[in-house]
């Protein structure tokens, strides 16, 4: 964590928490609406599962963050003058 986040006021943190709650509520609403949305082209079994997009999207996001940064720090990222040109 950067120092900027550590020194953040309690007020700011409460605001952030509030925002996250709203975000979760909106996603919850989407999932509920998803139960009733008509499926025109269910090509795969998961196309009929309400909220599948939320689950898959979140897992995707986590995979991307941790896989990319992991492989980056292990192999790919070099100091900026690596090529010396």
């Amino acid at each position: 964590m950067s120092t900027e986040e550590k020194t953040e006021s309690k007020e700011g943190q409460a605001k952030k928490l509030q925002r996250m709650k709203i975000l979760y509520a909106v996603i919850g609403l989407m999932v509920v609406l998803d139960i009733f949305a008509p499926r025109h082209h269910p090509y795969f079994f998961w196309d009929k599962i309400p909220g599948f997009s939320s689950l898959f999207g979140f897992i995707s996001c986590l995979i991307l963050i941790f896989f990319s940064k992991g492989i980056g720090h292990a192999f790919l990222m070099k100091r900026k003058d690596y090529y010396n040109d």
Partner: protein
Amino acid sequence: MISFVHPALLFFLAAALVPFLKGKARAALLIGMPAIAFISLMFIPEGNHGVFNIGGFEVVFGRVDKMSRVFGYVFTLMGSIGMVYALHVKQNGQHIAALIYAGGALGSVFAGDLIVLFVFWEVMAFSSVFLIWYGGEKSAGPGKRYLLVHTFGGVCLLGGIVLFGAETGSFAFNAIPAAGWGGWLILLGFLVNAGAPPLHAWLPDAYPEGTITGTIFLSSYTTKTAVYVLARGFPGTEILIWVGIIMALYGVVYAMLENNIRRLLAYHIISQVGFMVTGIGIGTELALNGAVAHAFAHILYKALLMMGMGSVIYMTGIRKGTELGGLIKTMPLTFGLFMIGGFSISGVPFLSGFISKSMVISGAAAAHNAYAALLLTLAASGTFLSTTLKLPYAVFLGEDKGIKASDPPKNMLIGMGLAAFVCILLGVMPSLLYNQLPFPVDYHPYTAEHLLGAFQILLVTLVGFLLFLYKLHPEDTISVDTDWLYRKAAPGFMWFANKPIARYEGFITEVYKKGLIEPVKKLSRIGWTVDTWVFDGLVNASGWATLLESKIAEMFDIHIIDGTVNGVPALLGGSAKRLRKIQTGLIQNYILAMVVGVVVLGLASFILFA
């Protein structure tokens, strides 16, 4: 009466006229000529135009059908918008290079046979490199590497065309079976330009080093021309499904690590082109329509994103995410316009990316390809994460670093505004684009199912971003990519190869003694010269069609070699910096002569045959 004026001809004509005009007349030419080309495309009837018989071969300059016309529309539209953004640029050479480059792309798109395609393909490569070289001192190396890779791709393509012609007895450019040496070599040549790993490294290497305005054109034409030729030549070629999926994910992963703001966007070009290549590989009408629609939408929103980050670099001179922050206060309009591009590329409903990306993914699902449908959705999440959340957070929001800046000049803002307008227009009225697609469209993007799916993916990605923000701050590093092979490994190899030669060359031995850094620099430069010679040898050996190209390449050689050889005394006497200056100076001087030569040749051939 003339029923067909080739749009490429209009661009070449504009390029030839640029040096003679100033002020408003020049502005009218730069913006107006692509607009005239756009309008003329609306009235050209379908069919083969500009058919000539050269040495027993029938060549077709203007094949107009729905597929080529829709690419023609977006290329000419982007030409106009890009020129609005570039109006403040005073160097005529940049405008000339951009116009010839766009003309080359249009020539490739309307080419009805492989020989014409190859000629315009090379026009594109040799004109676009100047948009990189004008980028300043640092762009000399990336520009040379760009040219070498494209020369390699061009040689593959030419070899493939010759073999394919020998195998089938025809140079007509229709669906090409990915079989035999001819078919595979042509495919390889196409994939180099599409930016498919491992042959993609030229793209993130060179694009971020181009000029502020040149990069807009670069990110529009080369890869999308490749998408067009793949859709024309290799629809339904199964290997392209996986090539596309790998591209889509590869670009996203590298973009996550990238600190250079334009290089991050360059990696997303690879990712987005991956969506198109997957669609082409699936090859159903829906998937092909999706690929073409995505190319159309992508050109505009990617240009908008590049314009946004270009404006940041133009106003602040800073290219790194780690050094930027808090620009929302000083560049609010740039931020707003950039976000429209960001939301478009992420597939936010009612913007252009949504109506095209969802078409590709639906195409994959309708073909019952679960891997493609799921992995492309994963890549879409990553696009939103890095282009639309991480990048603007680092540049515009985040920690305010107190950088002095303001919104860019008016013409740049208008250029961005026009691109943003088209992004919104296509999102709200998808039929505008759908009616132009190669196959009849029976696809409805705005169903409850699609909308809820899209919003869920976007919102949970936003949650992931906010929860793991601390992991996503940009880091001041560069990432090794496959260009490591020719940037680190090859110069190392060349060092050993040159060592015996160098022993007999007194003056180079002198350079060795001067220390460690200078000799390595010097030798890698000689390495490149040798590379150029090798490629040149290949090109020369490839028959009559490369004669023109090899001549140009030869001039480059003479130029680069002369620059290097002449540079040695300068290096001994002065610093490497001085040498570089002399070199780039020569390159820039040379541009006008070469560019004028290309224009004259192009015009002459059109006039002779028309």
